[in-house]
C-alpha cells in the first residue's frame, strides 16, 4: 500500500488542481447536505402553528436552493475526480507501454502475451479505481461524517450512540463481503477456466476422442467440472444473497433503534418532533456513503495487489545490448563483417553456436545453409542485434557491433525474420512501416522488387487494401513478400533474410533475387535458405551443422567437397524430378 501511494503521489501533484477543486466541491456538497435537514427541522417544528407561511416559505426556498447547489457540487466533484483518474490511467498506460517497448526480446520469451495483456487491462483498471471511485467515495464519506456526526450529537448524544452503532458497521460489513465476493468470484473463474480448457482440449483433440470412443467418458469429465462450476456459482450467489439484505438490515436496525429510543425521547420531552425528523434525515444521509466507503476500502486492497503485478513490469531493466561506448558508424562501401570465436547459448530454446569464426565481405551476396536447428537463425539474430552478442565477437569493419548507435545501426541494417509479421493496417502502410510518409513511388518500387505489385493491383483497394488482423486476408507467400517489400523500401546497406521466402514458389524467388542483384548492386545480402538452387550463384556460402561452421565456399567449391552441401543439393535435385 505504501509503495502504491509513493508511486501515485507524483500523479496527484500533476493533477493537483483536479484534486483540490474536487475536494472543495465535495465540501460544498456536504455542507449543503448538512444544512438542509436543519431547515426541515425548522419547518416541521412550525407545522402546527397557525399562519406559519412566514416561517415555512423561506425555509422551503432554502431547501430547494441548497439542493441545487448540492447537486452542482455533486455533479462537479464526480466529474472532476473521475476525470482525473482517467487522465492518470492514460499516463500510466503510456508509461507502461513505453517501458515495455524498451525491454529486451528475451523478456518477451519469458512472459506470455496474455499475462501482459491482463496486467495492462485488469490491473491498471484496479489502480484507476483507487484513484477514481476509491478516492472520491472515501473523501465524500469522511467529510460527510465530520459534518453530520456533530449535528447528530447536537440533537441527542444518546440517540446518536444508539442508532449509529449498526450504521457504522456498514463499511466493515461491505468490505468483508466485497472481499469474499472477490475471492469467490476468483474460484468461479478458476472452475470456469478448467471447464474452458477441457472444452478446448476436447474440440482440438476431437480426432482421438472420436476414434478412441471417449465421448461418453468426456461427457462425464465435463459433467464433473460443470458441477464444480455450478457449486462455486451457487456459493457466489449465497454471498450476494447476504450482501444487499445484510446492509438493508443494518440500515433498518438503525431506524428501529432510532424509532424506539428517539420516540421515547420525544414522549419524555427531551427532544422536539422537528429534531426527531431531522435526525431521521441525517441518519438516512449516512447510509449510502458508508456503504460506498466499505466498497472503497475493498478497492484499495485490490489496487495494492495489482500494483505489485505492475511494479514487476516496471522493475524490469531496459534493453542494454548496446554498450556505453558509441563508436562512429563506419562506411560500408567496402570491408568485412567479421565473426571471431563466437560462442552463444540461447536460454529460451537451447540452440547454441559453437566457436564460429567467419568473414563476410561487404557488398557481396552471402548464403547460410544447414539443417533445422543448426543455428542459422541464431546467427542471423545476433548479426541483426536482436539479441546482444558477447562483446568483441562480431565486428563491422573492425568496430564491435555492440558499440554502434541503435538508430544508425537500424538505418543501415535490415532483417526480415522467418515469421512474417504484418500489422492490421493497409498494405501500403505495412510496406512503408514505420515511416508512413514514404512517397508512394518508393512503396510501389519496393512492392515491384518483392514481386508483389501484380497481386496488389488485383486487390479491390490496391495499395489501400486492409490486410486484417495478422494479415489474415493475405496468403503465406504474400505475407512473406510484404515483409520483404518493407525491408526493400528502406534501401538498407546490409540486408539479412531469414528463410523468408519459404512460402514463395521457386520461380518467384528467382525473380526476386534477380531483381535484388540488378537493382541493389551495393547491397550486402546475407540470406538463410533451404532452397539450394536459388543460392547457387551467390558469392559465398556458409554451411552450419549443430551450431558449428562446417563448410564454406562458392557453389562449385562446395560441390567438389562432397560434404553436407553436395548431398543436400543432390537430394533436392532428385526431389524435383520426382513429381
Amino acid at each position, binding site marked *: 500500500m505504501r509503495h502504491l501511494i509513493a508511486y501515485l503521489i507524483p500523479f496527484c501533484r500533476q493533477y493537483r488542481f483536479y484534486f483540490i477543486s474536487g475536494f472543495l466541491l465535495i465540501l460544498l456538497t456536504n455542507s449543503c447536505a448538512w444544512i438542509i435537514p436543519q431547515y426541515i427541522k425548522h419547518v416541521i417544528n412550525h407545522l402546527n402553528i397557525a399562519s406559519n407561511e412566514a416561517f415555512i416559505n423561506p425555509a422551503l426556498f432554502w431547501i430547494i436552493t441548497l439542493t441545487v447547489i448540492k447537486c452542482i457540487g455533486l455533479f462537479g466533484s464526480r466529474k472532476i475526480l473521475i476525470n482525473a483518474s482517467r487522465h492518470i490511467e492514460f499516463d500510466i498506460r503510456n508509461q507502461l507501454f513505453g517501458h515495455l517497448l524498451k525491454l529486451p526480446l528475451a523478456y518477451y520469451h519469458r512472459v506470455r502475451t496474455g499475462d501482459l495483456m491482463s496486467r495492462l487491462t485488469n490491473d491498471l483498471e484496479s489502480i484507476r479505481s483507487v484513484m477514481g471511485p476509491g478516492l472520491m467515495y472515501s473523501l465524500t464519506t469522511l467529510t460527510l461524517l465530520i459534518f453530520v456526526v456533530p449535528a447528530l450529537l447536537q440533537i441527542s448524544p444518546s440517540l446518536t450512540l444508539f442508532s449509529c452503532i449498526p450504521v457504522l458497521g456498514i463499511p466493515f460489513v461491505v468490505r468483508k463481503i466485497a472481499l469474499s465476493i472477490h475471492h469467490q468470484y476468483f474460484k468461479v473463474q478458476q472452475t470456469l477456466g478448467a471447464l474452458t480448457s477441457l472444452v478446448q482440449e476436447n474440440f482440438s483433440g476431437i480426432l482421438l476422442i472420436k476414434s478412441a470412443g471417449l465421448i461418453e467418458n468426456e461427457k462425464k469429465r465435463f459433467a464433473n467440472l460443470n458441477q464444480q462450476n455450478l457449486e462455486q456459482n451457487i456459493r457466489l450467489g449465497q454471498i450476494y444473497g447476504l450482501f444487499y439484505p445484510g446492509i438493508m438490515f443494518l440500515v433498518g436496525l438503525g431506524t428501529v433503534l432510532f424509532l424506539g429510543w428517539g420516540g421515547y425521547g420525544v*414522549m419524555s420531552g427531551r427532544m422536539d418532533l422537528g429534531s426527531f425528523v431531522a435526525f431521521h434525515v441525517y441518519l438516512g444521509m449516512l447510509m449510502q456513503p458508508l456503504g460506498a466507503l466499505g466498497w472503497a476500502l475493498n478497492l484499495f486492497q485490490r489496487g495494492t495487489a495489482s500494483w505489485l503485478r505492475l511494479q514487476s513490469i516496471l522493475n524490469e531493466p531496459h534493453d542494454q545490448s548496446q554498450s556505453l561506448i558509441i563508436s562512429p558508424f563506419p562506411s560500408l562501401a567496402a570491408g568485412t563483417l567479421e565473426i571471431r570465436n563466437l560462442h552463444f547459448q540461447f536460454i529460451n530454446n537451447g540452440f547454441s553456436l559453437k566457436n564460429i569464426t567467419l568473414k563476410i565481405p561487404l557488398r557481396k551476396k552471402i548464403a547460410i545453409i544447414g539443417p533445422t536447428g543448426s543455428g542459422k537463425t541464431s546467427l542471423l539474430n545476433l548479426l541483426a542485434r536482436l539479441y546482444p552478442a558477447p562483446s568483441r565477437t562480431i565486428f563491422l569493419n573492425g568496430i564491435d557491433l555492440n558499440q554502434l548507435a541503435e538508430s544508425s545501426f537500424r538505418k543501415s541494417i535490415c532483417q526480415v525474420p522467418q515469421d512474417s509479421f504484418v500489422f492490421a493496417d493497409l498494405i501500403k502502410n505495412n510496406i512503408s512501416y514505420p515511416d508512413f510518409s514514404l512517397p508512394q513511388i518508393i512503396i510501389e518500387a519496393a512492392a515491384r522488387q518483392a514481386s508483389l505489385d501484380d497481386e496488389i493491383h488485383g486487390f479491390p483497394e490496391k495499395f489501400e487494401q486492409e490486410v486484417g488482423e495478422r494479415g489474415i486476408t493475405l496468403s503465406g507467400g504474400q505475407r512473406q513478400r510484404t515483409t520483404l517489400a518493407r525491408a526493400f523500401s528502406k534501401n538498407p546497406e546490409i540486408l539479412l533474410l531469414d528463410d523468408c521466402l519459404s512460402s514463395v514458389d521457386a520461380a518467384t524467388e528467382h525473380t526476386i533475387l534477380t531483381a535484388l542483384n540488378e537493382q541493389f548492386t551495393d547491397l550486402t545480402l546475407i540470406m538463410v535458405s533451404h532452397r539450394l538452387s536459388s543460392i547457387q550463384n551467390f558469392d559465398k556460402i556458409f554451411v552450419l551443422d549443430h551450431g558449428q561452421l562446417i563448410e564454406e565456399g562458392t557453389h562449385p567449391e562446395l560441390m567438389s567437397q562432397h560434404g553436407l552441401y553436395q548431398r543436400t543439393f543432390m537430394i533436392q535435385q532428385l526431389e524435383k524430378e520426382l513429381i
Partner: protein
Amino acid sequence: MSPFHEERPLQWKDLQHLKRLLLLLKPFIPHLILSLLLIILSKMLVLSGPYLLKLGIDHGIIADHLNKLWLFTSLFLSVLLMDLGFTFFHTWLLTWIGQKVMYNLRENLFAHVEELSLSFFEKNPVGRLVTRVTTDINALSELFSGGVVTIFGDLFLIVGIIIIMLKLNIILAMLTLCSLPFLLMGTVVFRKKARQSFSEIRIKLARLNAYTQEVLSGIKVIKLFHSQEDTLGHFGKINDQYRQSYLQVIGHYAWYLPLVEITSAVSLILILYYAAQTIEKNILSYGTLVAFMSYVNYFFHPIRDLAEKYNVLQSALSASERIFQLFDTQDRIPMMSAAKTGLGPLQTIEFKNVSFRYDLKNWVLKNINFKISRGEKWGLVGPTGSGKTTIIKLLNRLYDTTEGEISINGENIKNIAREELKSVIGTVWQDSYIFTDTVLENIRLWNSGHALAQIEKHLKNLQIQNLLLRNEKTYHYILQEKGSTLSGGERQLISFTRIVVQDPQLFILDEATANIDLQTESKIQEILNYIIRDRSALIIAHRLSTIQRVDRILVLNHGEIIEQGSHHQLIRHPGLYQKLYHLQRLNQKFHPKTSLAAIEPTA
C-alpha cells in the same frame, strides 16, 4: 466475440429465441413460483417499513402511548428480520435456478457438439465453438438469475408504493407522483446515453487491446525497424481516444445522481408545503408526513433496475441466438438404432469401391479396393495429400464413404455399433494428443477396467517405465497438452502404450513425421514390433523401413492406388515407390535420423 455484437435493437425473431429460453425454465416452475412468492413477500415487508414508522409516530409518540411505540418498534424489527431471511432466500433460489438452467444447457450443448461429425470440426474454428459452450452461456446467467423474476418484484414495489401513498393521502400522493414522470424519463434517457457511450467505449477498448496485443507479439519487428518512438506515439493516440470515450460517459453518469436528488427534493418541498397547509387542520398526521418522505426515496431503485433489465435481455438474446444456432446444427454420422454388437474375432476388413469427397468438386479417394485378412499387416505409402489419412479416418468411421462400402467380417461398418467398432480398432494418429490429466489416465484413457498394477506390468514388460516416469516417478503426475512437459518422442510413446493397454484386434498407425531422439525412436520401433506381432495392422509409413516387412504395401497418389505389392516386388518395379525408396536411402546414408517426411514431396 466482437464488441459490436451485443448492441442491436430487439427484433421479431428474438421472440422465438426468448420463447426457447423460457422453455428452459420449465422444469423449475415450482421453484420459480416459490421465489416469486418470496420476492413479493419481501417487497411487502419493505413497503411496510415506513408505514410502521408512521404508526409508531402517530399512535405512539404523538398519541403519547409508550406501549404502542414499543409495539411498532418491535414489529419494525421483526419485519427487518423476516425481510433479511426472505431476501436472502430468494436471491439464493434465483441463483440456483439460473445456474441450474445454465448447467443443463451447457451439458446438453457440449454433448451435442461432441457428437457432431469430424468434418464439422474441420470447418469451424475451435475457439468459436469453445466460446459457445462457455462465454455465450454465461451471458445468459443474468437473465435467469436476476432478470425474469425480479422484474415482477420491481413492478410490484412501484405499484405497491403508489397504492399505499394513495391510501394514506390522495392529494399528497398526487403531488409526490408529479415528479415520477421526470425521474422515469431521466432514467430512460440516461440508460440510452450510457448504453451508447458504453458501446463506444467497448469499441475503443477493443482497438486499444488489439493494438497492444499486436505490438507485444510483433515486438521483434518494432526493434528491427527501431520504431519504438512511432509506436508509442500511435499508442498514445489510441489510448487518448479510449480516455476521451470515458470522459464522455462520466458526464452522463455525473448528472444522473443529481437528477435523482433534485426530483426527490422537489417532492419533499411539495410534501412539506402541503403539510404546512393541512397538518394544523388535522388532515395530515406527522407520521404520514414522515412515511411519505421515506417512500419518495424508494422509487428510485426499482425504476433504475427496470431500465437495466432491458440491457440484460438484449445481450442474453444475442448470445442465445448463437447458442441455438449451434444446437440446430445436425451434422453428424448417423447411428443405426439396431446396431450390431458381438462381431466375434476379426476375420476380414474390406474396402469395396470406396470413393470419398468432402465437397461436390474434388474426390479425395477414388475407387479404393482392398481386403485385409486376419493377422495380415499392410502398409500405406504416398505423398502428402494422397489420401492416406482419409482411408484410416473412414475406417474409424469419422466420415461415411461417399460411394462404396467398408466392411468388417463382411458386415458394413455403418451397421456396427460405435462401441463395438472402437473395441476392434486401435489407432495411433500422427499427432499424439495429451490430455491434461495424470500419466495413468493418459495411458488407460479413463478406462478404469485397466488397473494401475496392470499398466505397471505393461510398462515394465516394454521397459519404458523410466522413459515415461522420468523425473516424477509417479503415475499420478499431471501432464499438460500445452506447455510441453513432454518431448515429441515421449508423447508418441504414450500413444503407443495406449494401444498396448487397449489391446485391439486391428492396429492402425499414422506415423508421425516429427524427428525424435534416437533412443526414443528405437524404443518406439520396439513397441511397434511388439504391438503388430500377433495383430492385424494397417500402417501409414513415412520411414519406409517401418513397413519393409509388411505383407502388402499400397501406394497412393491423388486418391488412387497406383501400385501395390510387397516391398520386394515394389522396389523391382519402376514407379513412385521405387523412387521414394532410393531417395530415402540416399538421404539416410547421410542423415540416419531423417524420415521420409522431411523429403517427402508435396503433391
